[in-house]
């Protein structure tokens, strides 16, 4: 660090001496800066990946090693003992299936309900637009745990308490603010000119949307769906309160966590974490588009 600062300082002195060497120095400075950026990139990646590595080797070690100390950074023994126990524990597979269904229902519902609103914010200037955005965002300010309590009563009255539907409805409500904001940013990225061209060519607004906007927005919408999916996959507190037998996977894990042995907890954490490696990989190209224009 000190060396490079000194070098930089030296560079500046040299720079003042001659223009030609200044150019060289600037090039060198740029090279050093670039090298440092790589170092930063690696360090930051290490920061993110190290815990993932540690939980992975913990989850795939035999119990004796999980309980042992000090632990070896290079795994000496591979074992699926704990993971097998976790995956085959009663209810885990059924809960996994439920989690998947809830997540799919959530993403379908929230897209159907929220995408039109997102489209409206992105395409129209109307009175109350900012108020609407604020309302939508502010809904997230209320703690889910407390929200779930009155909702549980409502769901009991409707006869859908303790079903994947009640969880899916709740998750839709949680995902909706994001869906609206994210879809609006996707629609913003579809050039308005194209849509207008379609309109002048005789399309109705609806068919212009279907034929022009939707195809262009589809990849982004798909990525947004995956984001919704992840949100539902991870949500646990509403799921715990709204279900009893029809537990989703995180709810099942949370309800059994208190006094489960630590190898089981580590296996569960790994199992909950692992899909995100895949999901984020699938949508990595769209992440910026999804979240980027939320701020505008």
């Amino acid at each position, binding site marked *: 660090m000190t060396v490079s600062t000194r070098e930089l300082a030296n560079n500046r002195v040299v720079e003042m001496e001659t223009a030609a060497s200044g150019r060289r120095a600037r090039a060198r400075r740029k090279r050093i800066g670039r090298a440092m*950026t*790589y170092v930063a*990139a690696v360090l*930051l990646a290490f*920061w*993110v*990946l190290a*815990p993932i590595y*540690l939980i992975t080797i913990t989850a795939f070690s035999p119990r004796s090693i999980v309980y042992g*100390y000090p632990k*070896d*950074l290079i795994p000496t023994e591979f074992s699926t003992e704990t993971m097998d126990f976790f995956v085959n524990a009663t209810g885990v597979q059924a809960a996994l299936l439920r989690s998947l269904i809830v997540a799919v229902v959530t993403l379908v519902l929230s897209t159907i309900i*929220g995408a*039109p*609103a997102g*489209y*409206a914010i992105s395409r*129209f*200037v*109307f009175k109350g637009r900012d108020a609407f955005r604020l309302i*939508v*965002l*502010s809904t*997230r*300010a*209320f*703690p*889910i*745990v*407390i*929200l779930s*309590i*009155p909702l549980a009563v*409502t769901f009991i009255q409707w006869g859908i308490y303790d079903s994947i539907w009640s969880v899916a409805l709740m998750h839709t*409500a949680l995902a*909706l603010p994001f869906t*609206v904001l994210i879809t609006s940013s996707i629609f913003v990225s579809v050039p308005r000119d194209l849509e207008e061209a379609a309109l002048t060519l005789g399309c109705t607004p609806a068919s212009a949307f279907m034929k022009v906007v939707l195809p262009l927005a589809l990849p982004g919408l798909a990525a947004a769906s995956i984001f919704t999916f992840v949100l539902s*996959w*991870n949500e*646990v507190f509403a799921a715990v309160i709204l279900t009893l037998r029809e537990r989703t996977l*995180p709810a099942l*894990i*949370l309800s059994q966590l208190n006094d489960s042995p*630590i190898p089981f907890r*580590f296996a569960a*954490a790994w199992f*909950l*974490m692992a899909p*995100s490696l895949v999901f*984020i*990989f699938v949508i*990595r190209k769209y*992440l*910026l*588009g*999804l*979240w*980027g224009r*939320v*701020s505008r």
Partner: protein
Amino acid sequence: MRGQRLGWAPYALLLPTLAFLAVFFAMPMVRALGLAFRDADGGWSLSSWDTMFGDARFREAMTTTLLLIVVIIPVQFALAMAMALVINARLKFSGLWLYIYAIPLGISELAAGIIWYAIFTQQGWLNSILESVGVLDRPFIFLNYQNQGWLIFCIVMAEAWRATSIIMIILVAGLQGIPRDYFEAADVFGATAWQKVRRVTLPMLRPSVQVALILRTILAFQAFAVVLALAGSGTTVLSAEAYRWYYDIRDSQVAAAYASVILLLSIASTILFLVLLPTREEQMG
């Protein structure tokens, strides 16, 4: 503008969202708030507020919550900014860096809490590493309620790891919205890297920063799985208290009072960020 032509259309498009949020957010919210102002017999009362303010853990929960937010958010912004600048530097494998930095976006609080417990617990990874390199000769107890500094440090690390991605992505997207010419112009004037960040990047990023701050703060008020996993009963935060009063003590009125406090704080912080960081649009009216 063009919207006028279809005056009713935007409202029709908003309707499903508004209706859904009314049923699944507004109604339960009003009912939950109502709970906070009633006593056990259903009459109007402030007794649950008295109970809450009188509870020994209320002050601890309040200070820890605020302290965590005050510490975590700058740390996360620094980290997120570093990540965003790295990505914006267009290194080789830029897709890979973005992917890696974004991974925690999909990791739940629950999983993150367990993962960091594995690291910080007395016989955990951090002590294993520190001992093997000879820094320690006996495991150090990080998760020690008697040493709130370390406890807060551990929670901050875990939260910074888990929840920085979302800020990073908003910032990267904001950065990419800044025209390259601005940086080139800065280069021409011989600006240093730091000057470029201060004079060009940060001002241009203001809207992104604002959104990220609001979003992150609101979610931070609700987070507690990580705190619970790392601190146990060694410290507490407001949302954990709401949960405890609802689950353990079976008093949904006091739980609702806690929820109302969280709601108030969220609204207050949102307004604060809107005022402190006006975006250009708002500045111009």
